[in-house]
């Protein structure tokens, strides 16, 4: 992210301490198992502080504790949260209520769920000010002012709109405006840009930053996306299994990470500059109450010694940092693992496997795709990129047969494809397989993994039960899951494991073309890396043709050979990945590439 990053450091240190968290401990109400423990950090005025980690690391739990809130079943059992010197954990419920919104504000992850769909924007903004009458002098002028500051039109028309009449980016700006309205001292942002595409995300982040600056607000930014955090915050805490494993200035932490977990997270971030093998972190964090005796990360750590499984590490100071790792000093001197380049693969050759000509698609009366021509070659991966609303998912759904409302010509291996899956031959249905975006909804929660994987085999092949079982086991190994997954239900799997099961379900029938629709957008960065790597390996090993739909340009480099840029339903650029990413012709593509958050732009970036 090319945010104005030069001024982060000096300014941050000068302001007074706004927020200080000391030895915070949060436990399960019933079993007193630790969910979050020993969390300490402080944030200065006008400083942005990042809290990063995978799902389940406890970062959202800490963020909510900053508002004096613990989710049902959780208890804040020890520690202090000092806001301008006063411990907000000592406050009575009534005092806490006065504090929230006025002095501490919260920006939720999903603005479409946080804004009341039945109330106008103006009402919701004024309401925030009305419940805290002392916060500002003139309510109406503050509303206009805060709208302008959050880069929204400060017109009466804007105030009369309902949330559904705004775009996702605008909704998030309204949520920001509501949070900043009462001029709080502390603002907690819980992954506020996760649902937005890169360009919108970039603009929202710039707004967050300028607003924190101008008010001297301390901000805590919670995210799993290291590239976003890296370009935004000056101090960062990396959380794992409810504890801070590494904390310090962003520039140091990201440039030379010490804790193996931080190293792993950073290695998982894709880069649009280089085609690299992405390495994820295998496994998942321990659940509360099941934490091992020693270091919680030891089981997943490639640096782990025997001592790591026994002894719980205490924070060790390295430079301006604190690292919770027994081997911190040794690891510090070991070089950060170099990234491995993806072996060059040749782009499409021969006859295209899938051929689209003049494809028009519409939802009801609204046209979504306009004259799309696309060729997908055997044994090669084509990436389709574009912002949300560009029609890329519709394109995928037309191809696989989920969206029958299209005209034009679509041919697969020379045969014309019918409009919907119901009208296609069984053979074609087997050859083209689709992987859904969200693994939390694409697996039937009432079926075991074995059932989920066996059923397509039963449907497409006449093979014996033994043969079927053998194939299921083989495909589970292919996606790096063991046979102990056979009897489990999706609810017992993490997001990454679920998506691998979804991949396994698609490849178990030995298709020729795999259509992947934003398959990593619901996953953490570290899990995304592992998932993309599984797909890349399978595509190569099985000589699959693949259509990889994504809004994340950084991923394209690691997996695809050719790229197609989709803008408002039209293909505006097409070519090899190198051509499109390095010499984009269209301004739209240039902007898409620029807006991708990049790790290389962390901090003041002294080296090239």
């Amino acid at each position, binding site marked *: 992210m090319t945010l104005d990053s030069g001024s982060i450091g000096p300014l941050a240190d000068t302001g007074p301490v706004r927020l200080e968290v000391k030895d915070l401990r949060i436990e399960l109400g019933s079993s007193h198992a630790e969910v979050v423990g020993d969390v300490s950090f402080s944030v200065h005025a006008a400083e942005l502080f990042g809290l990063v980690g995978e799902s389940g690391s406890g970062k959202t*739990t800490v963020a909510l504790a900053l508002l004096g809130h613990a989710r049902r079943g959780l208890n804040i059992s020890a520690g202090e949260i000092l806001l301008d010197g006063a411990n907000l954990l000592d406050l009575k419920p009534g005092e806490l209520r006065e504090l929230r919104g006025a002095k501490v504000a919260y920006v939720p992850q999903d603005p479409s769920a946080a804004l009341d769909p039945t109330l106008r924007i103006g009402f919701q903004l004024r309401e925030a000010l009305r419940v805290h009458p002392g916060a500002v002098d003139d309510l109406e002028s503050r509303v206009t002012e805060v709208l302008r500051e959050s880069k929204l039109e400060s017109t009466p028309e804007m105030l009369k709109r309902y949330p559904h009449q705004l775009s996702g980016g605008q909704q998030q700006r309204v949520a920001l405006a509501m949070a900043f309205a009462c001029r709080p001292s502390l603002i907690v942002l819980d992954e506020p840009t996760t649902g937005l595409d890169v360009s919108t995300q970039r603009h929202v982040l710039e707004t967050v930053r300028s607003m924190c600056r101008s008010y001297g607000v301390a901000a805590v930014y919670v995210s799993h996306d290291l590239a976003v955090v890296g370009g935004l915050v000056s101090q960062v805490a990396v959380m794992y299994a409810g504890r801070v494993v590494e904390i310090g200035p962003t520039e140091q932490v990201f440039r030379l990470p010490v804790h193996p977990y931080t190293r792993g997270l950073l290695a998982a971030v894709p880069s649009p500059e280089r085609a690299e093998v992405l390495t994820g972190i295998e496994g998942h964090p321990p659940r509360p109450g099941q934490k091992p005796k020693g270091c919680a990360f030891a089981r997943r750590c490639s640096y782990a010694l025997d001592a790591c499984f026994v002894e719980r590490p205490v924070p060790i100071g390295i430079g301006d940092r604190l690292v919770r790792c027994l081997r911190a000093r040794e690891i510090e001197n070991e070089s950060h693992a170099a990234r491995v380049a993806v072996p060059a693969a040749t782009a499409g050759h021969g006859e295209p496997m899938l051929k689209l000509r003049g494809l028009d698609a519409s939802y009801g009366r609204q046209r979504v795709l306009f004259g799309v021509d696309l060729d997908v070659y055997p044994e090669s991966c084509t990436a389709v990129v574009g912002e949300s609303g560009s029609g890329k998912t519709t394109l995928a759904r037309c191809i696989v047969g989920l969206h029958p409302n299209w005209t034009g010509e679509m041919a697969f291996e020379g045969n014309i494809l019918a409009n919907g899956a119901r009208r296609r031959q069984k053979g074609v249905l087997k050859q083209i397989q689709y992987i859904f975006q969200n693994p939390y909804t694409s697996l039937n929660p009432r079926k075991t993994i074995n059932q989920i994987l066996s*059923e397509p085999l039963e449907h497409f092949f006449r093979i014996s039960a033994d043969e079927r079982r053998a194939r299921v086991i083989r495909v589970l190994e292919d996606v790096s899951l063991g046979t102990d997954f056979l009897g*489990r239900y999706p609810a017992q799997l*993490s997001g990454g494991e679920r998506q691998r099961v979804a991949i396994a379900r698609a490849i178990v029938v030995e298709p020729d073309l795999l259509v992947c629709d934003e398959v990593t957008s619901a996953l953490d960065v570290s899990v995304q890396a592992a998932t993309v*790597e599984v797909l890349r390996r399978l595509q190569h090993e099985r000589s699959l043709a693949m259509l990889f739909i994504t809004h994340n340009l950084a991923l394209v480099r690691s997996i695809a050979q050719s790229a197609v840029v989709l803008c408002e339903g039209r293909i505006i650029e097409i070519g090899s990945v190198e051509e499109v990413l390095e010499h984009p012709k269209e301004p739209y593509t240039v902007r898409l590439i620029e807006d991708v958050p990049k790790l290389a732009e962390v901090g003041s970036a002294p080296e090239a």
Partner: protein
Amino acid sequence: MAVLAPPSGIVGAPRLRPQWVTLLGAAVRTRRGAIGVSLAGSVVLMAVIGPFVAPYSPDQTVTFPFAGPSSQYLLGSDQLGRDVLSRVLAGGWELLLMALAATVFGVLIGAAAGISAAYLRGRIDGLIMRTVDVLLAFPQLVFALLLVSIIGPKIWLIIVAVGFTHAPAVARVIRSAALEVTERDYVKSVELQGVRPAKVMISEILPNLVSPLMVESGLRFTYSIVLMAGLSFLGFGLPPPAPNWGYMIQENRIGLSLNVWAVAVPAILIALLTIGINTFTDSVARVAIGVESRPEEALIEEEGIRE
């Protein structure tokens, strides 16, 4: 990515039991559920073992009509001088079995109609749901009475008639629950394989409707009991002399001032049974929507799911 250790975090995790077992278990453990089960359970238990422990034959005249309670006849006698206690003990199981059969019948038809309407959409949806609207216009009891009065009181007919009157309401509820399930990606995923609609409905959609189905079944079971008792009371149930709680209320009400127990006991039993089942059903519904679910599980779900 060469070697992968199995994610040891959940290796020891218990295997999930079928959802209905989990739901029932969780419901019984709530206070509300425990009260419901003990109320309904004791009445059911009485109905089941009653016929074997009844002191007299239920059809045998043992004393004068409407005798008050005595040490020999604990609840007194009825209009024909039969022992009320024996008739109460013997007259429950038949009612319970018939109510159960009617519930199963009604829920099956209703669920089939509801799922079909939700999944197939279009004209079939319209046809099914408009039929449901028409049937719902008749009060249940009137509809059942109509059928029974045309054909006559037969066990199978009472079951079918009562069950059939449940179907429209069940169809409504199940359709709305199923509508949401049909939109899920795993349903789309099997559609993409070209799986037949009937199989999609049975194997993908039905298993995800376990909790609404359980709640509906509980509710319809109490309605079945009340309806059947009502039919008996109106004289359209099984003909005498078979003992039956509903019919007992009707035949003994003329002697209400002489022996109140001949009416009160069957009425109280029916009330306890329906209240118990309703309370339990309520707790199942609460558990199903997570109101009373365990917080640890809720936490893990929340932390794990992020889009």
